């Protein structure tokens, strides 16, 4: 793990869904690692990607930008991207950036998986 990075990322395939589960902080340093995992999810060609943020303590705009980039790829490739499990403080940055209505957001992983 590069110096100063605290991010670990889980990657799991359930049927036609890829679940990406980052754990730790997604700041300036970690956004690059996060982007790599999201690219891997897109490369899998799964029709649905769920990003479970339940174990993300902190995110700043480089982390958000990575998800915006992933959303753009999703739109181009007709992949469904769902974010879930955000804590109040992570959700707040999406609200500040007016992105809370741009992303499909679920309260938790179970709700995201059950979404048709």
């Amino acid at each position: 793990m590069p110096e100063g990075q605290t991010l670990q990322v889980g990657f799991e395939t359930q049927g036609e869904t890829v679940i990406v589960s980052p754990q730790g902080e997604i700041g300036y340093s970690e956004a690059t690692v996060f982007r790599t995992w999201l690219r891997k999810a897109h490369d899998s060609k799964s029709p649905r990607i769920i990003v479970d943020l339940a174990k993300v303590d902190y995110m700043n705009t480089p982390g958000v930008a990575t998800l915006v980039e992933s959303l753009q790829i999703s739109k181009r490739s007709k992949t469904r991207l769902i974010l879930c499990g955000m804590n109040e403080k992570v959700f707040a940055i999406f609200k500040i950036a007016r992105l809370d209505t741009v992303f499909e957001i679920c309260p938790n992983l179970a709700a995201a998986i059950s979404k048709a």
Partner: protein
Amino acid sequence: MGGAVRKTIVGRPVLRLSTQEESSRGNGMNPVDSMKGAHVRMELLSSPVYTSGARDMVQAVTRRMGFAELDCSQIALAVDEALCNIMRHGYENKPDQPIWVGVWPVDEPGVPGGIRIVIEDVARQIEPEKIKGRELHDVKPGGLGVHVIKEVMDKVTYEKRPGGGMRLTMIKHQKPVPVGGSASDGCEGGKGCHA
């Protein structure tokens, strides 16, 4: 060095926290006169490794000042965003350039109490009016940091430092605590609270 916290790699301080007393004495290392008198002053190098130190310091100070929990985390976020912008755009990812963070309480008659945070660098200068966030309806990666800073803080001023670099001054006033409430309101059941 008194009560200062100092971490050194290869003989150079990478993260340094000093008290008002030490700041006012001056130590001959810091060229930033405007930081004198800061109640807390931090000096760090422009590596992303150290942004969390500055963020944690600001979060701890604002919490002890009595800001609501969500405000504490958002003020810390504003500092983090400012540092990221300096590192990325000002210093173009060079990890060994200096950044100074100073914190003062806002304690003026007729004005709600609060915090004033000043961040200075010696990075390339740009016209302050050119520093603005992107239009939010244009959904694309990047350009969100300045918007977040301006949204979260009550007053934000960018200016060129005499002699080089930029100075960012951010002020956040405390909201009155509702009757029967507490400063930690806004942190639902501890879920996601950033300790």
